[in-house]
């Protein structure tokens, strides 16, 4: 009897221990907070020595960033500097930096946390469609009053991707523009200059091909890579604002001018201007084709300029790379200097951060210290990321010492307007269809520009109807 009693008691102990382990997370969180408070006390005393005892009570906030890996060290250093400044600004505050791969954060971790209602206070956020979905569900902090208070609302070049129903829910950390990087050494050898007309560009592509070189780098395993150029081409032929009109029904994917853009892309594929076998190559190989000298031109975002710096994979091409916008096309609609530009990645803040006065103060300080001219210039000079905020041209010129970056800025300045990439304008279903199926089918010869336009329009109409 005694033995069975002992057995029963031990079993109950094990079971209750197990159930306690799986118990209420709120209690755990409270306990953890208590522990964290205890451990952080020492750190906080120094920072808050001059403050009132109550406001100096230690508290912790998490910053989820995506600056992981060797090539993001400079961006991480900027964040660390900002974090240091905010900690000095807000008594008692200790930041916990949580670095996660961008894709994992965007598609898994942050979404899970949003669903569970426990996102970090500050996190890396994509503008469209992510921020709008989170904002609609009330998960994000409305930044409009903070921006008004800090007086920086009008300092951003474009906040549309982070705006939902007139309120701002996130801030872009930097911007990018897309155009052609070209091998200047090869061009100089041929006595060429960056093309001023579309005919000149096409002649150069034909001549490079005839010379036995690959005219354009190609790596289309991921659909977004070829779509950068295809997007710019259909926007040249059908107008820079055409993509924005797909979701409203004012324009269609099978409009003749859109088809012209797709047909031009197909024509270049058929003429063998892209690296053969491109559908099997990863984005990393795209860069390698260019840096190795195999491909003479590469259509890519301005973020790629960081590759052509000392210690990076394109080090051998420092001073030998130029950048130009797609020249105007004959019969093209709208501004023919328009550049594809994006400001879709930045920081967002959890709605719960606004409920605690001190956390709100920390958020304000973070915005003040991160989103200013100094940090935007550091991003540009150290990391090759274009400013998301308006920066005076004279200041920009003074800070840029890199030839390629000067050329990029000159291209940006010479374009009279800009338009965002398609994936921030059309619904996710349309993005999936064009990225995963249609563009690869076009390249692989399984579809025609006309059929592609029809297929996309069908998905677009279904997506538009679903919204209504």
């Amino acid at each position, binding site marked *: *009897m005694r*033995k*069975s009693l002992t*057995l*029963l008691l031990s*079993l*109950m102990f*094990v*079971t209750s221990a*197990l*159930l306690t382990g*799986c118990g209420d997370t709120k209690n755990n969180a409270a306990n953890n907070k208590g522990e964290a408070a205890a451990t952080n006390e020492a750190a906080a005393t120094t920072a808050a020595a001059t403050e009132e005892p109550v406001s100096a009570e230690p508290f912790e906030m998490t910053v989820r960033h995506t600056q992981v890996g060797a090539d993001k060290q400079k961006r991480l250093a900027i964040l660390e500097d900002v974090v240091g400044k905010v900690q000095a600004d807000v008594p008692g505050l200790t930041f916990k930096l949580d670095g996660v791969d961008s894709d994992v954060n965007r*598609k898994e971790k942050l*979404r899970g946390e*949003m*669903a569970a*209602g426990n996102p970090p206070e500050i996190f890396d956020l994509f503008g469209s*469609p992510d921020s709008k*979905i*989170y904002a609609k*569900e009330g*998960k994000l902090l409305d930044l409009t009053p903070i921006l008004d208070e800090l007086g920086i609302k009008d300092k951003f070049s474009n906040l549309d991707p982070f705006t939902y129903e007139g309120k701002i829910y996130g801030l872009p950390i930097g911007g990018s523009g897309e155009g052609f990087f070209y091998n200047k050494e090869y061009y100089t050898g041929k006595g060429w200059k960056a093309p001023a007309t579309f005919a000149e560009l096409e002649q150069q592509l034909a001549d490079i091909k005839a010379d036995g070189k690959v005219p354009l780098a190609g790596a*289309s*395993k*991921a*659909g977004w890579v070829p779509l950068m150029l295809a997007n710019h081409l259909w926007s040249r032929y059908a107008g820079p604002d055409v993509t924005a009109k797909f979701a409203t029904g004012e324009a269609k994917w099978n409009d003749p001018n859109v088809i012209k853009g797709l047909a031009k892309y197909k024509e270049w594929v058929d003429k063998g201007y892209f690296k*053969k*076998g*491109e*559908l*099997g*190559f*990863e984005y990393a190989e795209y860069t390698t084709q260019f840096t190795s000298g195999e491909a003479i031109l590469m259509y890519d975002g301005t973020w790629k300029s960081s590759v052509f710096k000392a210690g990076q994979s394109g080090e051998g091409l420092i001073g030998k790379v130029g950048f130009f916008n797609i020249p105007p096309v004959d019969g093209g609609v709208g501004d023919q200097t328009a550049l594809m530009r994006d400001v879709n990645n930045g920081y967002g803040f959890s709605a719960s951060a606004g409920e605690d006065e001190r956390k709100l103060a920390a958020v304000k300080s973070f915005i003040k210290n991160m989103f200013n001219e100094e940090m935007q210039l550091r991003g540009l000079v150290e990391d090759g990321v274009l400013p998301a905020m308006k920066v005076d041209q004279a200041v920009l010129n003074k800070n840029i010492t890199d030839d390629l970056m000067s050329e990029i800025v000159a291209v940006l300045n010479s374009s009279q307007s800009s338009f965002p990439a398609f994936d921030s304008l059309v619904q*996710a*279903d349309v993005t*999936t269809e064009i990225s*995963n*199926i*249609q563009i*690869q*089918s076009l*390249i*692989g010869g*399984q579809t025609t520009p006309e059929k592609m336009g029809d297929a996309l329009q069908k998905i677009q109409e279904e997506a538009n109807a679903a919204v209504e």
Partner: protein
Amino acid sequence: MNKALRNPLVFILFVIPAMVLFIMFFIYPIFSSIYYSFTSWNGVSDTVKYAGLDNFKKALGDERFWVSVKNNGWFILFSVGVQVPLIVFFSLLIANVKKLKGLYKTAVFMPSIMSTAVIGILWGFIYEPNIGLFNKVLGLVGIEPVYWLSDERFAMLSILITNAWQWTGFYIVMVLAAILSIPGELDEAAAIDGATGFQRATRITLPLIVPIISVVIMLSIAGAMKAADIVIVMTKGGPAGSTEVMATYMIKYAITNFKYGYGNTIAVLIFMFTLVVTALYQLVFARRTERIEY
């Protein structure tokens, strides 16, 4: 002690911890998945809208979903039709080598302990159109380069070969263990009676390892139904969706598009298809081969 064990309450108490874990990590997720499969939940919202059978109708009416089902079918056929015979063949060979058996076992087992991402990169080099091993060999006999991963005709086959390479060794070690556990007297008696090596392999060893082959086939079918990682690292489901499987379809068309309800529908369909295929296999083949007595 005996008294305690006669009390049903004690048994229940012993079972509770395991049951709690089983319910938490198996039963609850399945039922939660089934529940969400009937909703249009976006994965973020606090409110969940009931969508009836809409998600199921959408999936079953989507041509791309059926392409992915067909590709899972190719995985099963390749596993059972090509991989399993090779597994048996190599197991018999290795079981009969006199020297360096350990080395052979380690060598064939090696790919299965490698991460799929590494295998993707490794085979990416082998399939590389210009400098890859396959095309170099084909070039020696004057065959034009084949675009293994970027040509719709070869992309699925390339994945199947890589997947088979990754898992063959794992199953070989399983089959090998079964072969080596067969009492040596049986083989010796047959040898004394004048049976050749081939006869001993086909008439004695093979019939005795049928149960483990059956298990290998079962595991291959289950593995084929949930394949995803190898497709993601090799082709990302391309070119143009031609190598999509059900799991990658679920990620691409549902999860990344904030359609968790639809994603759960696909997960439920994968679960159901796997259940049906494995149940069919059990009923038709496996039951007949469950027991072997020496």
